[in-house]
């Protein structure tokens, strides 16, 4: 279980351009951090760096757990959830089949997947192909994976943008429960998160 994530003097590059440099921060268990910044400031790239998908130009991301330092490999395989605009849901497949795969792939089980779908009001949609879901329904399907598979670090790229008001409130509640259970949230947002969060401004 991750207890803290430390960003140490990060500089991040996209293509030939340096997006930001000298970013240091520490996020501890139970804390939500809102990454803000203009379009193209590097919020998404920072999330991908923390997830271990992209290497930073300089600096490092360190994961700490109760047993000491956690390697990047272990953090990526067991501790990180990344939900972004590209959700990896296959449009030709049934929503239920996709949710079941994603949940089991990230270490959850089917019973929890069903509970998560019920919580997010997806139960009646699970028989439909992903193709026919609306943007908000699709995002709820992607978020159901977070609840159903136990990974402490949530990396969210504008998680609320396609959601309606009720779903935003519900997801705020769910994020609160995740933090109360010792989880960590790093979310790139333009609108404020529906719960108290520390703000880190990227690329300013």
């Amino acid at each position: 279980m991750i207890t803290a994530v430390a960003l140490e003097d990060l500089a991040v590059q996209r293509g030939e351009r340096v997006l930001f440099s000298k970013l240091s921060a520490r996020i501890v268990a139970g804390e939500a951090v809102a990454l803000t910044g203009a379009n193209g400031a590097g919020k998404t790239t920072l999330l991908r760096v923390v997830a271990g998908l992209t290497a930073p130009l300089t600096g490092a991301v360190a994961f700490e757990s109760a047993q000491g330092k956690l390697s990047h490999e272990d953090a990526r395989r067991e501790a990180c959830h990344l939900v972004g605009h590209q959700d990896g849901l296959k449009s030709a497949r049934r929503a239920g089949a996709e949710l079941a795969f994603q949940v089991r792939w990230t270490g959850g089980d089917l019973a929890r997947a069903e509970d998560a779908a019920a919580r997010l009001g997806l139960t009646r949609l699970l028989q439909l192909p992903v193709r026919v879901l609306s943007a908000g329904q699709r995002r709820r399907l992607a978020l159901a994976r977070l609840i159903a598979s136990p990974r402490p670090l949530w990396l969210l790229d504008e998680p609320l943008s396609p959601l309606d008001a009720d779903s935003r409130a519900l997801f705020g509640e769910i994020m609160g429960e995740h933090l109360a259970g010792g989880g960590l949230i790093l979310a790139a947002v333009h609108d404020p998160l529906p719960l108290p969060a520390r703000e880190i401004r990227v690329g300013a």
Partner: protein
Amino acid sequence: MRLLILLLNRELALAWARGGGPLLAMGFFTAAVVMLPLSLGPEPARLARVAAGAAWVLLALASLLSLDRMFEPDFEDGALDLLILGPLPLEAVAAVKCLAQWLVTGAPLALAAPIGAIALGAKPSSAVLVAATAALGGLAFAFLGGAGAALALASRRGGLLIAVIVLPLLTPPVIFGGAAIDNFQSGLPWLTPYSLLAAYALAATALTPFAIAAACRNAAS
């Protein structure tokens, strides 16, 4: 192991969902076998001489068809990120994806190959050998094709790049496979080209997952 099977099932389902899975390669192979006598002329002796070689060229081309759908959709819709964040090493994921590609195109083509070769005039007694070589060759095609598809990720005109990367790599199995069948039909030793084909296919199976994983990581970053 449970996760490998989970991923394999998903890949097979996806392969069926996109482009009808085996049907595309089978349809191409069948159409080409039907058209070859029309273009070469109907003399059985001439057809029989080229039957083995022609069948092998058609197998190689048929297995090229769906390569650009192996990694590109996953890369574009974010599924590749999810696979990287999963519990298995990316090398294992790559091997499973190539195996699924073989099960969906290579294995059905191996069943169709003897029918095609015999229809073109190969001896019926060679049917088992044709199927066995096509199955091995298909394994090489799937894994080497996967390497080409992964290397072409994130590039414009990826389909062209895949063909350019993969076709030279597919040449040795075409040579060995065609030679094994030709030798068998003319009573020459066929085990040598067959062994070379097997060695080539197994080496491709063992080595390409590492190249594919590296290419996928590079494309995702």
